[in-house]
């Protein structure tokens, strides 16, 4: 049977079930007696077993089978769900995840599941073993040169260049591997030409590698210099620089061992990969998802959205025709069509958005594992997981968040006894909060740990020559703490020396900025730290209030609106020529939108009654005077494009139901330029 066509489905469903397993196991840990949870776990495991056996992935099937045996005993109450057993099952799920991902990426790593199976058998018999070392699969790979590449190296030699084979190993547990590898590669590119990388740069970008990769570099620089360059990038554990003679006997010998294994498996892998990449292409590296879903290429959604837009416009045209020619039947039909298109439009828009919970849902497990490893007690509180973000952003935001969470647990939260000594709750608290704020989505990672000592950070940065003494003197505590985002600040020694973070914060910052966002940190010694990520709402859907000024319609994001009130002209007072109103005892400056936006006024009927939209940005408040309030609506934010980029007070545009464009106000800028 040709199973390739089912590969996408297999991967998708396996990931879903593995996610279910993870969350159910967490539940089971809290409530070991719960039969319904056990049943759910059992069902998921069983499905995975069945699917993988059908697909011919015997390793997965075998491991799941053994796991099922243990689960069965639990279910029949012959075994108690002790932490040890749950740990073992968790480990199985991890291994299964890895196996599934290996299948997905066409990776030819063979995991040895024997120790795990033994362990399962042991716990099944009620024996407890302590075996914490997770087996590491030896990483061997090498560069196989093609004829052309060999000849390039040869000819380069004549011009005084040399080929180096550089084996780079990232520190184990390094997050944002792709970002790191990218940094290594771009650093090397400054020294010379990169002929080849193993795995390919594409795979590196997709993080389809363990913790090491190889680069073949053609350069005039010395080996020592190359070595130094690579090591200067944080989180690089090891770098071996070998001179590559092409075609050299030596070289071929070292690579031979590997190329053998590669060749053997190449055939079968190539086939799998074809299908796996097809399934993956649309989804890049989305790891885990919950709920039933269909994977759709985002481009298709884009064109769907555009088509619906066109439909709406044509519908309005029909409407016009119906009205001008007084065709009652037509008008009636169009009214129905109107309802359908409106629904259609909102559904299509929503399809692009996914709740941020999809990323968050893998964190409880991670926090649990990590806090346990570090002998700390941490309570993770997640808020606003229903906040929706554009799919593309969701895919990218996971890794930086993992990084921040790990930092919080590792360096922020103290050990229970330390916390007790400080008079804190021995159980640390980490809050992961997502919410809309104006035109942004804010994600906050906040802990109540020991905070970051700005003086230590300053000293460290001085020592490393990242800032000068004069700069250091000028810095206040907040600026100093932000130094952690500097590239080169983060190295392993800092983490041990400094009471604070530092592992790869520059990588986090890079990633967020590549998404057009910002990351900032606030900290208070002994009270905790707060990392705030601000992501722009490109393509996001927000709730907005539509207002009318003269004949023009503008949208004000609901997130920044406090209230709307109506006042009379007498209510407006002036303080030093600044118009203000008094609202519940608070003085609120007034912004006349018509003046601010130079709206052409038709006639000069000054209204007695004025509508004021009270907005806020941070602590500040202002009242925006408009002619009319139209109503609240969900809108999709669209960019105004390159040509009109950088217009203050306008954050973007949106398309209304009738196909007209309405501009979205940037409340922050509006208040600033008041």
């Amino acid at each position, binding site marked *: 049977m040709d199973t390739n066509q089912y590969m996408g489905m297999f991967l998708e469903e396996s990931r879903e079930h593995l996610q279910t397993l993870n969350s159910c196991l967490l539940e089971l840990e809290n409530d070991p007696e719960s039969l319904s949870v056990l049943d759910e776990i059992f069902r998921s495991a069983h499905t995975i077993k069945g699917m993988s056996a059908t697909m011919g992935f015997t390793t997965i099937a075998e491991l799941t089978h053994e796991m099922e045996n243990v689960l069965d005993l639990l279910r029949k109450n012959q075994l108690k769900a002790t932490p040890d057993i749950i740990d073992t099952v968790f480990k199985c799920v991890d291994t299964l995840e890895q196996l599934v991902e290996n299948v997905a990426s066409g990776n030819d790593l063979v995991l040895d599941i024997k120790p795990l199976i033994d362990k399962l058998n042991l716990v099944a018999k009620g024996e407890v073993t302590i075996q914490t070392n997770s087996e590491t699969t030896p990483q061997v790979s090498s560069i196989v040169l093609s004829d052309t590449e060999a000849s390039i190296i040869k000819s380069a030699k004549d011009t005084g260049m040399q080929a180096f084979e550089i084996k780079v190993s990232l520190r184990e547990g390094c997050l944002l591997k792709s970002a790191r590898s990218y940094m290594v590669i771009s650093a090397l590119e400054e020294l010379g030409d990169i002929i080849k990388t193993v795995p390919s740069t594409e795979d590196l970008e997709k993080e389809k590698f363990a913790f090491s990769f190889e680069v073949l570099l053609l350069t005039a620089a010395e080996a020592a210099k190359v070595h130094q360059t690579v090591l200067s990038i944080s989180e690089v554990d090891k770098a071996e620089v070998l001179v590559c003679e092409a075609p050299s006997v030596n070289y071929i010998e070292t690579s031979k061992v590997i190329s053998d294994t590669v060749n053997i498996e190449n055939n079968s892998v190539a086939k799998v990969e074809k299908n796996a990449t097809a399934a993956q292409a649309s989804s890049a590296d989305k790891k885990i998802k919950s709920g039933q879903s269909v994977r759709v290429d985002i481009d298709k959604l884009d064109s769907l*959205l*555009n*088509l*619906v*837009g*066109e439909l709406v*416009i044509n519908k309005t045209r029909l409407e016009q025709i119906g009205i001008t020619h007084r065709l009652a039947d037509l008008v009636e039909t169009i009214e129905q069509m109107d309802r359908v298109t409106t629904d259609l439009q909102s559904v299509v828009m929503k399809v692009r958005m996914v709740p941020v919970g999809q990323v968050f849902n893998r964190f409880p497990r991670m926090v649990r594992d990590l806090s346990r490893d570090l002998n700390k007690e941490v309570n993770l509180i997640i808020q606003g997981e229903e906040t929706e973000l554009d799919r593309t952003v969701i895919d990218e935001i996971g890794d930086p968040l993992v990084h921040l969470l790990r930092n919080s647990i590792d360096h922020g939260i103290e050990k229970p006894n330390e916390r007790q000594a400080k008079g804190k709750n021995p159980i640390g608290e980490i809050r992961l909060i997502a919410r809309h704020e104006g035109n942004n989505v804010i994600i906050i990672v906040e802990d109540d740990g020991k905070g970051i000592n700005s003086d230590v950070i300053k000293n460290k940065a001085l020592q490393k020559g990242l800032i000068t003494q004069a700069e250091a003197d000028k810095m206040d505590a907040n600026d100093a703490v932000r130094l952690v985002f500097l590239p080169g600040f983060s190295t392993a020694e800092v983490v041990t020396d400094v009471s604070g973070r530092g592992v790869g914060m520059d990588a986090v910052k890079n990633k967020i900025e590549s998404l057009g966002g910002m990351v900032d940190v606030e900290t208070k010694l002994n009270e905790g730290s707060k990392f705030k990520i601000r992501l722009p709402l490109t393509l996001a859907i927000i709730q907005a209030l539509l207002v009318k000024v003269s004949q*023009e319609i503008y949208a004000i994001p609901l997130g920044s609106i406090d209230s709307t009130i109506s006042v009379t002209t007498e209510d407006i007072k002036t303080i030093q020529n600044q118009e203000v109103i008094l609202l519940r005892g608070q003085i609120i400056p007034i912004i006349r939108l018509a003046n*601010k*936006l*130079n*709206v*052409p006024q038709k006639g000069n009927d000054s209204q007695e009654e004025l509508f004021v939209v009270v907005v806020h940005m941070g602590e500040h408040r202002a009242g925006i005077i408009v002619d009319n309030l139209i109503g609240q609506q969900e809108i999709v934010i*669209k*960019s*105004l*494009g*390159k*040509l*009109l980029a950088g*217009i*203050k*007070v*306008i954050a973007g*545009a949106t*398309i209304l139901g009738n*196909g*007209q*464009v*309405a*501009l979205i106000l940037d409340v922050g800028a509006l208040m600033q330029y008041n």
Partner: protein
Amino acid sequence: MAEKTYSGNEVQLVVFKLGREEYGVSILQVQEIKRMTDITRVPHTPDYITGVINLRGSVLPVIDLKNRLNLPPQDHTDNTRIIIIKIDEIVLGMLVDAVSEVLAIDQTNIESPDSVVGGIAANFISGVGKLDNRLLILLNLEMIIGVGQDTKAV
């Protein structure tokens, strides 16, 4: 001059009117031609930017070509069209009085702008095409939308 080959020396132009003058842009830069539609004014933009329109779900800026070329303004009529063009990944609309036809003109019949116009918006003109007894003003769109070197040319 150069030998005559059909494909090599002919350019296809979309010809449109601004007032009484006839203009042309390369058909390769034109994406489509639209009837007049609702244009939303955008505050704090130069005069020649009329506003933005919705083109099948994307928001595009529209420039008033006559304003840009310092021609006297005129009310919109039934013939008013928006020509959607694409230059360097920027898609935008140009408001014109009427679109008349698509025609091919030989390179040899295009004169460089320096020899014809010395005055105002010379920067915006890439040449003048002679066709029987008609004159077609060929526009340099890069300069007009300001992705050329000098944005504030007027």
